[in-house]
């Protein structure tokens, strides 16, 4: 959060924002809430979600993997708020713990993918030439792959585990990050301060990582926020197909998996609640992404859609 003002200032705003005194974080948040109520609501929901994930052991009413033969397929009640599944596990507790898995995988994949993508994109954009050309061909090809198929191939190759699913999904977002950070590097490269740094004779790593990279992060940050929802759905999709994090770990996609389908008619709550959780998360992440984009990129402020 410390470098957030830098991010905002890095984008030409078209207003006189730069002339005004720097706002504190609290003032910034207040402004954000006033200008983008939907964005603020979604940020609030996501904070709740993060808290849910962190305090899952406290919030859960039951052990999420404890099976209970006689108590299977129970309808929602005071004891089991969202009912029980085909193995007698408490659906509410599993949804709570599922938030953990989704967020863990989501943030890990986005973090890893962003670090890799930005490093490659910035270097490729700054150096240009053959290296850039080759990188761009690779990016084109990777962009062409359906996201889920690329992730699937990687999971098959690496084996399914929390770490590997995260890695697979991070690879899937890397090309988009590369493309974006490369294009912002091309703009930043022309700035006076880069020329100044060059004249002073800073080393290549210092130039790339200290002078250029921080100034390209704004749009990447937006992309990453928007993509988080997509990554979480992809994780759920893999788990749904039986290629995700192996059971009994409670994950939303896994809860919707083949296991649940046979019991869907008898116990609709088994598919209802994890799906609602997933949809809400994806929806809020895309809302937040949109709000951030509008704020960071004034060119889109009057966008037609």
């Amino acid at each position, binding site marked *: 959060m410390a470098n957030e003002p830098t991010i905002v200032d890095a984008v030409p705003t078209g207003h006189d924002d730069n002339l005004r005194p720097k706002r504190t974080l609290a003032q910034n948040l207040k402004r954000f809430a006033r200008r983008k109520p939907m964005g603020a609501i979604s940020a609030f929901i996501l904070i709740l979600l993060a808290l849910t994930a962190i305090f899952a052991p406290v919030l859960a009413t039951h052990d999420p993997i404890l099976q209970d033969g006689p108590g299977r397929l129970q309808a929602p009640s005071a004891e089991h708020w969202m009912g029980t599944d085909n193995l007698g596990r408490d659906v509410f507790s599993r949804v709570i713990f599922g938030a953990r898995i989704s967020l863990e995988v989501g943030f890990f994949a986005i973090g890893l993918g962003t670090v890799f993508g930005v490093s490659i994109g910035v270097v490729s954009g700054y150096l240009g030439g053959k290296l850039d050309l080759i990188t761009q061909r690779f990016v084109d090809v990777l962009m062409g792959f359906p996201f889920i198929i690329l992730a*699937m191939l990687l999971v*098959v190759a690496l084996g399914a585990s929390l770490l590997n699913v995260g890695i697979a999904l991070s690879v899937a977002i890397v090309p988009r990050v590369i493309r974006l950070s490369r294009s912002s590097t091309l703009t930043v490269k022309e700035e006076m301060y880069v020329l100044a740094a060059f004249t002073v004779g800073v080393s290549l790593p210092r130039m790339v990582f200290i002078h250029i990279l921080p100034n390209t992060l704004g749009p990447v940050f937006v992309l990453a926020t928007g993509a988080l929802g997509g990554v979480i759905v992809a994780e759920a999709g893999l788990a749904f197909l039986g290629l995700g994090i192996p059971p009994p770990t409670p994950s939303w996609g896994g809860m919707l998996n083949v296991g649940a389908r046979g019991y869907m008619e008898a116990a609709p709550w088994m598919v209802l609640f994890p799906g609602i959780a997933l949809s809400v998360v994806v929806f809020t992440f895309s809302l937040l992404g949109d709000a951030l984009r509008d704020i960071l990129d004034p060119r889109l402020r009057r966008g037609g859609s």
Partner: protein
Amino acid sequence: MQKYIARRVILFFPTLILASVLIFGILRILPGDVALAILGQESAEGGGGFTEAQIHNLREDLGLNDPLPVQYGKWVWSMLNGEFGGTSIRTNEDLDDIIGRRLPVTLQLALYTIVLSMVIAIPMGVFSALYQDKWPDYVLRITAILGQSMPNFWIALLLLLFMVTIVGWSPPLGYVNIWVDPWQHIQIVIWPALILAWRFSAYVTRVTRSGMLEVLAQDYVRTAKAKGLSQRLVIQRHSMPNALIPVITLGGLEVSTLLGGTVILENIFGIPGVGQGLVEAATGRDFPVVQSLAMMLVFFMLALNLLIDIAYSYVDPRVRYS
């Protein structure tokens, strides 16, 4: 324009080669031995052990004893010959049979989806633009946002649940080809196509809407109105053709999402397409099948994108000269 098309066609081949290297490479980064992994799984299932000779034989069968470039070369050569790299490890079925059986099913599904979404989305986008910021616009936009944020497999489950519990009807289980029994075919295929189309049309609606808004603000549209043309003519003849250009180009990008979606939905509705085969093979660690089916999907995606680019250059004269 020939030059533009020629350039796109020439670029197509390196992209294809890179894609094949990538697929091949990813499936070779497995830490450990594929043959061992397969035998380990088989013997765990069968309860018995396996011998050194078995490992060697399997490695030989899979061509794993060759150096990587040779393996890659053999795979590409067999694809060019239409054999697609031998047989499935699990079922021993020839890969060209598997692909011949599965590919048309998936392409059909993709085609239905595209047609359905065009039929639904273009009028919706135009309508939305004409009623900008009035309630029909909001309803359509919210529907579109829902289509984009609800995971397609969850929509599918809800739909099945709804049909079984409330309507009391569920789609027939056995997939049949459209030539055999069109009615049963449609009863099965319409649902995944509709679900995929929801998402795809969410996107088409958005692009059509903003395209229309832009065009409607143009001077020549005002001129057309001013000279007394009917509303219908202004929209159909003067506005829509120009508004729809971005739908074509940007549609290419969404095709990959669409094909990704078929993978999941085929598995839910029991449609024996490439996606279902891919998941089956992936779960069973059937590497030759995974490799070739993935390659096929990517090939068709790239080919579709090429076609779209070419179509674009016909539709939009500005492209030809750039």
